[in-house]
């Protein structure tokens, strides 16, 4: 039986719920969960002021309601599973190291910033800064997976060093900006300046997308490693076609104002 948190009072201001993750709620009964502190704007409050808590935590937490103003859900999560039925606010799964978060709705900005493991699945759209580094931080996502079925905003994978980010729709500007390593796959197209400042890593896009002049064309080929990634994403439910799996990709190397060891792969149609 999973622990269920149903939103009964929609917050007027952002609600910071850093305490809500499977491992932090392990062993707590509903009453104890309801008593945990949260921050409503700049006011102290408790979980029970906003959520009705029922069930028991067997490693899975379910949340429901319009959670667009609820921030920091799954922060630092290391194990277990969270399922969120509804839209969710900013900073979902910040610093997450393990487990899985599934959002049956949209997610706000900063999905999985600086996460190091586990998986976040957003069935709708996501905001800006998916899998990014925080401002002033040198390294973003260090591992794990973020799968967004819809579109995502700007700076996907900013400074990411490892892991996989996949966007089922389109990505915004500056995808993979300052990327150190890792893989970003966009099933649609990316916005402008993809890979700006990237040192290593892979940005894969399926539709024609603008490129910086600091990326140099190498060749069109069929990268075997990409088949593994695309088959993996298809198993997770992303709409990956056979043509994308078996297709040829144009390889652009860059960013040559930096290390020039990164790549942007664009499906050759």
């Amino acid at each position, binding site marked *: 039986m999973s622990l269920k948190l149903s939103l009964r009072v929609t917050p007027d201001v952002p609600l910071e719920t850093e305490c809500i993750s499977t491992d932090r709620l392990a062993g707590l009964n509903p009453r104890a969960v309801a008593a945990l502190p949260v921050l409503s704007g700049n006011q102290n409050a408790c979980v029970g002021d906003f959520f009705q808590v029922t069930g028991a935590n067997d490693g899975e937490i379910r949340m429901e309601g319009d959670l667009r103003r609820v921030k920091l859900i799954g922060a630092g999560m290391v194990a277990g599973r969270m399922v969120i039925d509804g839209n969710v606010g900013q900073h979902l799964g910040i610093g997450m190291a393990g487990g899985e978060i599934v959002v049956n709705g949209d997610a706000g900005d900063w999905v999985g910033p600086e996460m190091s493991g586990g998986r976040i699945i957003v069935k709708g759209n996501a905001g800006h800064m998916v899998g990014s580094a925080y401002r002033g931080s040198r390294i973003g996502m260090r591992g794990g997976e973020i799968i967004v079925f819809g579109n995502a905003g700007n700076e996907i994978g900013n400074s990411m060093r490892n892991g996989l980010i996949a966007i089922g729709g389109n990505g915004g500007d500056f995808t993979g900006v300052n990327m150190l390593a890792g893989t970003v796959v966009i099933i649609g197209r990316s916005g402008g300046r993809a890979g700006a400042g990237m040192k290593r890593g*892979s940005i894969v896009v399926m539709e024609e997308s603008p490129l910086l002049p600091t990326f140099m064309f190498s060749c069109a080929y069929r*990268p*075997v*490693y990409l*088949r*593994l990634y695309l*088959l*993996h994403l298809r198993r997770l439910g992303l709409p990956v076609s056979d043509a994308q799996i078996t297709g040829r990709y144009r390889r652009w190397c860059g960013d040559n104002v930096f290390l020039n*060891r990164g790549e942007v792969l664009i499906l050759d149609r």
Partner: protein
Amino acid sequence: MNAGRGAMHINSTEIVDTFAEAFAMRAARVIITADTDHWVTTAAQSMTGFATSVIGCKCEAAIERRIPPADTPDGRPGASVLLFAFDADGVGKRLVERIGQCVMTCPTTACFNGLDAQETVVVGGKLRFFGDGHQIAKRLAGRRFWRVPVMDGEFLVEDRFGVQPAVGGGNILILGDTVETALEAATAAVAAMREVPDVILPFPDGVVRSGSKVGSRYKALAASTNEAYCPTLSGAVPSTVLPAGVGCVLEIVIDGLDLNAVEEATRCGIRAAARNGILQITAGNYGGKLGQYQIHLHRALKDRP
């Protein structure tokens, strides 16, 4: 099948009440994929060439089975190869040599670990240096891969390969009245044994004619022909074990990931080989003094339907 007072027959073939002596080894499974079946076969055959006997070749290896595209990591045609050596270090060295020289060189191929084992050896992590600094690491679902740039694109190879305890040197000896009969029976046995998962038959198309004994009158040789099973010497050496009428002996050596697989292959091979013209099916051993495992032919047949 008739059994009683130590004698067992399948059709007219006597199954000798003896055992095959097998050895504790270490094994790895390599999944090779390529754009076409042709290049899968070429790479797998190349990798498993000169890998018949661990004594002479440092490892034993063969193709285990074909893998359809739906079951391979990259969705392309594939084949699995089992490679055996005496220890994990030996397995690792042979994998680096053979994948590096025979698979990486083969157009369009990729190479993946096929064994989920606690013990691992570094393979791709060594082959990556061929990339001379241009290699790229990728990590997906807890597995690490190396993209090594080559002249047709990239060679993709997994960083580490699993190694597990295994059984090598299971065998049966097929004693026929003529070469033709023995070869026909051996071919049927090989076909049946290849249906058994987790085993390989490392000799040429599964069959070996030059069975050996330990030692030689020549000091430089660790092994020499087993004259007790040479039909041309049956009238000349007192150690012959061949019954009258035997004109050809063929051996099938079996390596498996566990004893159960080797026993199952033994059973399938004996049943397929037994026929008119095959006088006896027996097995080679060293009196039980060398190997860690004994595969008793009668027990293998009785314990399994």
